[in-house]
């Protein structure tokens, strides 16, 4: 057994992962499906001719179209869950501040972004103001009041995309990671051959200012926050569920259609288009019912990540969930990948563990801090601010998380002194 975390995708090695647009997108998939559908229709025509000495072209066309559709859906699903994400490195550890609200994507993943430690968002805003003021020829005069964050965000939002990307790249390279001792998570925002490996490095876009159209590893949303952020996703499987339901309907259609065609051709001796239409009408009803049953049971919306499944026998769920909001400082573990389809996003996907390090003012879980401690429980909102996280801290945090917290086997039996057992009594059931 190992630590549980929901995972539905597999990442593919650099060179094996690809974007749909890379293969010609839907055109390529459609071509494949036509080949498969044509082959299926041809096989049916051959079998039908052998058995009845006649061919119902309606059945041949119908079987071919259904095989085409099944092939297309299967091909898409396989690619989406197995060859869309490019592996960079497994089990990475990132510490940073959550920026922007979490959102649910179409495929059921829950997305949220972090600004890597040790940079607080306020510090990054200062760098933007400084860089614009120092380079008016390149980035324009800037807002009237540089200390007005909203005005600064609006100004950067109104820049052309090329200028905006250049500004962000310069802030990241020239202001954030040019500080000795504070660049320990640089590899998550700036491509590094040594850190990524040659295969992943060569399979990703150039993110330097030397490129005509640089594609940085980080992402930007100046309207929400000026932070150049790293993207992260809790994994769901809404698309998988949806496709599974469609496939159940399509396969039901194909099987019943083939059976009805066979019966019809045997009875009528292959009545040209008649068998195809009759079989299609009856099979469509069956297929719809199969899809409906599947959809009711396998509700795609249940595949949204981050929901608590209250139907399973997990009485412990109640005390173990908590909410995170922008401003919280988190330590994360997950696989480091590049999403070939998502504008080559670099992200942790799936997130396997979230450790709260510092709670923002806006977190609804916050506790009242009571200074008189002899009678009262105590929690502290933020004893360890993000700007105080040093490289040494980061290494120790990641060692605790990755080596001890996530990978170390759980001991089935433990023997403690009574003194130690009393100290940790709250953890014993």
């Amino acid at each position, binding site marked *: 057994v190992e630590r549980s975390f929901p995972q539905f995708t597999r990442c593919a090695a650099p060179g094996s992962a690809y974007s749909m647009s890379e293969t010609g997108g839907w055109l390529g998939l459609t071509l494949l499906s036509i080949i498969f559908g044509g082959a299926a229709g041809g096989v049916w025509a051959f079998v039908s001719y052998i058995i009845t000495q006649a061919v119902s072209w309606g059945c041949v066309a119908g079987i071919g179209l259904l095989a085409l559709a099944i092939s297309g859906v299967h091909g898409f699903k396989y690619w989406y869950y197995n060859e869309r994400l490019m592996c960079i490195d497994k089990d990475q550890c990132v510490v940073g501040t959550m920026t922007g609200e979490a959102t649910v994507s179409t495929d059921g993943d829950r997305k949220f972004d972090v600004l890597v430690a040790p940079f607080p968002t306020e510090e990054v805003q200062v760098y933007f103001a400084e860089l614009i003021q120092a380079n008016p020829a390149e980035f324009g005069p800037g807002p009237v009041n540089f200390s007005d964050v909203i005005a600064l965000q609006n100004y950067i939002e109104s820049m052309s995309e090329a200028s905006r990307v250049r500004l962000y790249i310069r802030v990241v390279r020239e202001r954030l990671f040019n500080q000795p001792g504070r660049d320990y998570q640089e590899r998550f925002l700036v491509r590094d051959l040594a850190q990524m490996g040659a295969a992943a490095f060569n399979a990703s876009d150039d993110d330097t200012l030397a490129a005509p159209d640089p594609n940085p590893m980080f992402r930007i949303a100046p309207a929400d926050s000026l932070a150049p952020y790293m993207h992260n996703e809790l994994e769901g499987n809404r698309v998988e569920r949806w496709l599974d339901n469609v496939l159940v309907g399509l396969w039901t259609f194909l099987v019943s259609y083939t059976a009805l065609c066979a019966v019809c051709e045997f009875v009528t001796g292959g009545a040209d288009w008649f068998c195809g239409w009759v079989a299609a009408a009856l099979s469509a009803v069956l297929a719809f019912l199969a899809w409906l049953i599947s959809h009711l049971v396998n509700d795609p919306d249940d595949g949204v990540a981050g929901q608590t499944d209250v139907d399973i026998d997990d009485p412990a769920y109640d005390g173990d969930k908590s909410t995170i909001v922008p401003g919280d400082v988190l330590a994360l573990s997950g696989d480091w990948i590049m999403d070939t389809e998502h504008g080559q996003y670099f992200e942790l996907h799936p997130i396997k563990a979230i450790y709260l390090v510092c709670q923002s003012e806006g977190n609804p879980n916050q506790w009242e801090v009571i200074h*008189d401690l002899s009678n009262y429980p105590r929690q502290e909102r933020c004893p360890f601010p993000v700007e105080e996280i040093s490289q040494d801290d980061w290494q120790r945090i990641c060692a605790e998380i990755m080596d001890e*917290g996530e990978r170390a086997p759980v001991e089935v039996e433990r023997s403690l002194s009574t003194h130690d057992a009393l*100290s940790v*009594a709250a953890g014993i059931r």
Partner: protein
Amino acid sequence: MNVHHFLRLLSLQFQGLVENLVASLRALINNLLHLLRAWFSWLLRLLRGRWREERYEHVDCLEIPPDINRRPDPCLYSQTFLAAQGIAVTWNNPDIRLTTLAGIPAPTHEIEADTEYFVIGTIHNASFDAAIGVSVRCAVRPWGIDFSQRTPVEVDAAGNPAQRILHIGPWGEALATFRWRTPNVERGHYCLTVECAHPADREPNNNVGQENTDVRRSSVATPQLFTVPFFNRRERFREFFIRADEYQIPDKRVELELEQITGVRNTDVGRRNELLATYGRFEAEWTGREEEILKRVVERDALRGARIRLAPKGRRGRGYRVFGYRGRTALIADNRINGFPLTEGWAVTIPGLTEHPAGWHAVIPPGTTQDIQVIVDVPADATPGTTKAINLTATDQLGGVVGGVTIYVEVEA
């Protein structure tokens, strides 16, 4: 168009044809069975009048699911927490040590004036999840019971209480060391307090530990008088009970075993009955809703202690089992709160207070300190050369521990 990917996808279509067919048929059959089960569950809920319950909880904000969320429990030997669990306590805290700057252990009841010491607090993590960024502080209070005045033993450059940040692995421990210059007061006697905190703390009630001891040498058959200052920090008269016992932490190993935590449906009948009899018998008899009370006590039992979610290796998707360490019942049984009365011949009396089954009854005016005179009778047959530990623990009217001291009487030859 990338020909390599195109050809690979094409070959996959044909390679996976049979697998795809089998997978889809299997999904169809599974879904049909699942649907039948769902209909049956819905029918049961309908019959029980609970048909409106939804299977999934839809949330708007980002609630971290329990298999992703990590919650530590930084803690130390906490007298208030342990007493609330029905466990006897000593005020000689095993997680708080005092040493000289050379590292030589120093007794907390006998310290030099205007001298530097190290106060070392051991912070544990009672969780399967690492504790990242635990803050630890240390304060000193007047020796006695329930004093609210807290002075940090060390301050930082800005004059704020010094803080140590620790990162503690699952079920691990780490040391927080503070430098303390004692006040320039001869025969000063203090209570040391170590406190830890974390924003995601699973159990914040076990974050404060106290070290509060005194030692006296005594001949046999000689009563010893101790004066224990008792402060009422509230703005009202309060009643307290002071009880004495001779509990000391046993030198014994405690064995913990990982067990699966099951839900109501999977808890075996014996365990269900045991839990119901222990925690919910009266409520079940009173309300007549045994099933509902049973569910509640089983869930409450499942929430006790740290938990970890494990799944078969290589599994993708959801479906995990919850595990925790069993052993608290045995721990409580071996250290139960009323299990260590003074041995025969030894006696504690507090003149001016009345003795009550819950302890010596004291009423203290608001905001005042009352010196409690405690007389310890050393029996004539006490063995010379031995040391007797006597814990004086004060509780309020609700039974909550407000403080205490541990007195050591060394019997002289």
